[in-house]
Structure formats: C-alpha cells, structure tokens
C-alpha cells in the first residue's frame, strides 16, 4: 500500500536524498511532504495526515528534538512513526529522541539499505 511521508531537514538536497533512499528501499510513496525545520513540519501536520516522518536533529528555528517533544500535542501525528536522520552521533541525543517516541535513528552518511533496515520494519507491512 502506498504511504505518505514527511521529510524534515534544513537541506533541500538532503530531503531529496532521503526521498530517493526511501524509493530505492522499495517503499511505495504516494506523496512526500517536505519541511525545512520542526516548526514548518508542525504546520504541515495541521492539515495533513502522514504515515511516516523522517527528521533531522540540527535545524534552525525548531530542531528535531524539540519537534518530537511537541508531537503529542498534534492530533495528526498520533501513532505516526518518526525516524531521526542526522550527522549527530551523540548517545544522549539518541536516548533523548528515543525517549520522546522516535522509533529509529539513522546516522548520515547512510545507504538506502540502512534506510530500508530501519524504516521497513516499523511500517509493519504498510508499504
């Protein structure tokens, strides 16, 4: 079944790479929303329902950790898996993201295979 994804990264190039990696991983995407920071992503979620979110950590305006902390307030985000994709290798950031509900953590640089390993299982047969 095709899924709808929200990709959050301050780099437009990285957003395209993440989208391509999802497609290379065999994930059937019906629609992809993009946001360049957490605040923009919250606006997208006001009017749209998505099946998966992939989020950078270090971003201006609202970073990925703040964004994931705000998700419980967002009706459209309920139960939607979030995977963090970041250059940040700090163990404390990983723990913080996972403790606030992130379902996975992928470090840049990454391969499409790594994206597949982290994302496909959490979609639970949706893709």
């Amino acid at each position: 079944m095709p899924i709808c994804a929200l990709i959050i990264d301050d780099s437009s190039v990285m957003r395209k790479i993440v989208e391509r990696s999802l497609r290379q991983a065999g994930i059937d995407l019906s629609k992809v929303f993009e946001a360049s920071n957490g605040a923009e992503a919250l606006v997208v979620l006001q009017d749209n329902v998505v099946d998966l979110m992939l989020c950078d950590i270090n971003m201006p305006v609202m970073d990925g950790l703040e964004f994931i902390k705000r998700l419980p307030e967002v009706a459209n985000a309920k139960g939607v898996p979030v995977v963090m994709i970041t250059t940040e290798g700090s163990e404390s950031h990983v723990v913080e993201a996972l403790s606030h509900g992130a379902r996975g953590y992928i470090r840049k640089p990454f391969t499409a295979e790594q994206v597949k390993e982290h994302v496909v299982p959490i979609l639970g047969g949706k893709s």
Partner: protein
Amino acid sequence: MKSANELLAANGHRETWTPLLEMATREVFELMLSCQLTVATTPEESTPEVTAMVGLAGQLCGVLSVCCGNKAAALMASKMLGVELDKVGAEVSDALGEVCNMVAGNFKNKIAGLAEGCMLSPPTVITGSDYSLHSMAESPGLEINLLFENMPLAISLQIHS
C-alpha cells in the same frame, strides 16, 4: 582508544586524526555520492572556487572546511540529487555544505568522546576565490588533498583547542 583531550595535550592528534579525516571523507563520498575519491599522483595546483565550512565547539574547537572548484561542486550536487549536471542550479551550495557537515560529523564520531562532547555549527558556504581566511588556530591544521572525479578536493581541519 585515547580521548581527544589526551591526544591534543600530547600533541599526538596529527598522525592519528589525519587518516580518520580521510576515512570520514571517503565514506561520505562512497555512501552518499556513490563514488571513490582518489589520491593525486602529482600535486594539483588549483584555486578553490567554493568553500564550505562547519565549526566545531566543545571538547574540540575548530573549523572543518571543504574546498573545490565550481565544476566539482556542481558535480557533487548532481550526484547527490540524482539529476543531470546541467539541471543543477542553486542547490550547489546546499550540497557542498551538507558534504562538509557529514564529513565533520563522521569525523568526530570516530574519535572517543567527541560524538558526545563536540557540537557542529550549521554549514557556511563561500563562493569565489578572492578571500583570505585568518584562523585563530593554536596548532597547525590537518589537511588532506584528494581527487573527486579527477578534480581537486581539499579538506582541512583548523584546531583551536
């Protein structure tokens, strides 16, 4: 494995970190651009036309920079986006900034204590070659020179503490 502070105090970081910087750079190009960097067999004389910089702060303070020519930067963007070279436009700076960001992140994650104790700034990209960089570095920086699709690519790390 020695920590960053121990290596800096012993001034032994140069021989340890240079191969790690090269490995970090090669991994980024192999995984994100699907290409192998090569070593120049003869010294390459070139003027950098695009420079991306990422600051490091915390246990290691400094600046990591990636310098290359316009054509190399455009080709990087083309490979990262998966589009033809002539379709690349304003994304060139973004692409080189992300390359620099990933090299810096990958490098610090290879050194004990730095993944946790060192933060990265957002990338800054300078286009043009008519500029001088004045570093407040307290020790000589690390520099590696490689070839990206036979075009010069210089990666340097200026260490402030």
